[in-house]
């Protein structure tokens, strides 16, 4: 782990003040083997595929949207795992930007769904076929 033998600075102890049990488990984990990065990437791939299944199979627009958020979270997990693997903060920075963009996208997308619901009284994607040629 990162803080082998170093002091905890004020900012790095921030999550431990909220989750005090983590302090115990993280100190203990220093002597145990770490999970290889492949496992994190495979978990991220599984979550991504579950999100894809949701987008393809469900017809409720809001649940499709939630599956897209699930896919974004899977990619965030992949970025953080690789950031830890290579010891570079760039991965976590990309996660920061992905979170901001996903929040903006969720706000605008839900506003669009609200507007559509006002005119068509449905959120079923099969019935939103005005543009079908």
């Amino acid at each position, binding site marked *: 782990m990162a803080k082998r033998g170093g002091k905890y600075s004020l900012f790095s102890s921030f999550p431990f003040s909220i989750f005090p049990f983590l302090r115990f488990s993280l100190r203990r984990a220093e002597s145990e083997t770490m*999970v290889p990065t492949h496992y994190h990437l*495979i978990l991220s791939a599984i979550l991504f595929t579950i999100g894809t299944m949701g987008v393809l199979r469900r017809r409720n627009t809001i649940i499709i949207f939630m*599956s897209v958020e699930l896919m974004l979270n899977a990619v965030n997990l992949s970025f953080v795992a690789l950031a830890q693997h290579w010891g570079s903060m760039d991965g976590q920075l990309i996660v920061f930007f992905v979170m901001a963009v*996903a929040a*903006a996208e969720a706000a605008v997308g839900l506003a669009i769904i609200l507007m559509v619901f006002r005119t068509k009284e449905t959120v079923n994607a099969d019935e939103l076929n005005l543009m079908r040629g």
Partner: protein
Amino acid sequence: MNLLTFIILAILMVGSAVAVVIHPSPVYSALSLVVVMSLLAVYFLFLNAHVVGALQIIVYAGAVMVLFLFVIMLLNLQTDSRETQQSEMKMSAGILCAVLIGELIFLLGGGGGRLELQTSQQQLPEGFGTMQALSERLFTDFVLPFEITSVLLLVAAVGAVVLARRQA
């Protein structure tokens, strides 16, 4: 993070993700997604991503999912009976995703020796994942994406208000 913690978190996460996708009621789907995001935040804390883990709770579980739940309750969505796709689309979606997951697991699990992710036990730099380390990168090399993201958030907020207001 040791293997037992990883397995417990992974099983809970995959179970909640499947519940998001499968459950007929939108409210339960949203709550399962909140569970997935909270578990991901715990995951990030174990992976030395302290700021990102806290932000995951604050932004995703605390703002985005609350927005989803507001919209679900505003539209008063019930459990939809005629919900899923026709059967041929369902089957091809299942086959597609089976191929996708097989391909991804093969590739990310080593790629037949092509993916060179040597398990380096290198020492992470001091203060990795703290607020200081993130800000150091964010405000020096990434200041332009940062400013553009703030403009993007402003545009999104204004756009959402304009789109969702009642037509006068």
